[in-house]
């Protein structure tokens, strides 16, 4: 199964990015093979719709679960429609997030954790 973790960097020891739509990178990790790829988030600078576009990218990659800090309503709606489980409040490194998932540490979020545009930095 393919997992998607929002990430500040591009390696398994970099930190989970707390933002979904405006995260730095997506790490796609295949639990069957242990292989991962890092994909830069090209949507981070969109003035609107970053979460929607990011959710579309996650679906296109075939991920089945998303691990991130917070998620807004639009992205949550798209991911849910794609049958993707969303795990929020995830922190630490990507590696820790993956292990946490394997140990059943997280429960999927039924609803968004933040309002729209909350991943936008000031200015």
């Amino acid at each position, binding site marked *: 199964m393919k997992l998607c973790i929002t990430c500040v960097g591009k390696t398994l020891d970099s930190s989970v990015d707390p933002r979904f739509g405006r995260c730095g990178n997506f790490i796609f990790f295949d639990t069957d093979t242990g292989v991962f790829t890092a994909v830069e988030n090209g949507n981070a600078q969109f003035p609107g*719709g970053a979460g*929607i576009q990011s959710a*579309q990218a996650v*679906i296109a990659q075939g991920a089945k679960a998303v691990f991130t800090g917070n998620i807004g309503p639009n992205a949550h*709606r*798209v991911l849910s*429609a794609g049958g993707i489980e969303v795990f929020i409040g995830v922190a630490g490194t990507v590696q820790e997030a993956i292990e946490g998932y394997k140990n059943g540490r997280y429960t999927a979020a039924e609803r968004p954790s933040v309002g729209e545009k909350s991943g936008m930095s000031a200015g």
Partner: protein
Amino acid sequence: MIIAIASGKGGTGKTTVAVNLALSLDNVQFLDCDVEEPNAHIFLKSHLSRAESAVIPVPEIDESKCTYCGTCRDVCAYHALAVVPASEGRKGSVLNFPHLCHGCGACRLLCPNGAIREVNKEIGRIEFGARDGMEFIHGRLNIGEAMSPPVIRQVKYYIKPARIVIIDAPPGTSCPVITAVKGSDFCILVTEPTPFGLNDLVLAVEVVRKLNIPCGVVINRADIGDGKVEAYCRSESIPVLMKIPFKREIAAWYSEGIPLVERDAAYRQTFINLYITICGIINETNSCC
């Protein structure tokens, strides 16, 4: 003749200038295009007698015709659509985010299966009124809506160029301002003589210059700051049309919703002179090109 009153930021006295200019002239049509916070009617005490909806066409998807091809999502420049293809027994879906939609119609036009039709969505209200001989129109964006340009365009649809049209533009230097100011014969930029005022003025000047609209500056609270705004105007050959001093009573009247010219009749002549100066500049601009 169309005169827009703009300012790089809010709270500089833009509406004060627009309202007092309008009250000093005859045959005025006043368009309040500051649709996120239309407040000129408070000062003009115009009686609002009629209203209509401001709408944009947003897509509605007939999923029985849709193949989840994703074209509509790909053509939408505003990310207002998401398409999730069917997989593993789950049916596909098209998700619509109408508050991001600009009503451009691209998705409907380019859907290969004719699965999209347009439905009107109300995003604001246009209200019409009058005061003495003045015609008054303003737009008001509904709470929670973000798309002010269509509301502004709908207000401007009613422009009567044979009158003196005064447009109170929204503050700032982005899309809504451009929509409001575009097509004007002249733009008055209201500013304050402070570093912030200057900073925002410079940005506003860039915008009106791009639109090829002659402009001039009104300095409000003219005696509180420094001389940098005037120095800038001199170096850029932008006329300083008028200076309004900082006076406690002006601020007090403002907070009570009383226009300057109604309390201090001498100001009426000042605003008439402002208008005459603007006419002179417009005539000069026209004759040299």
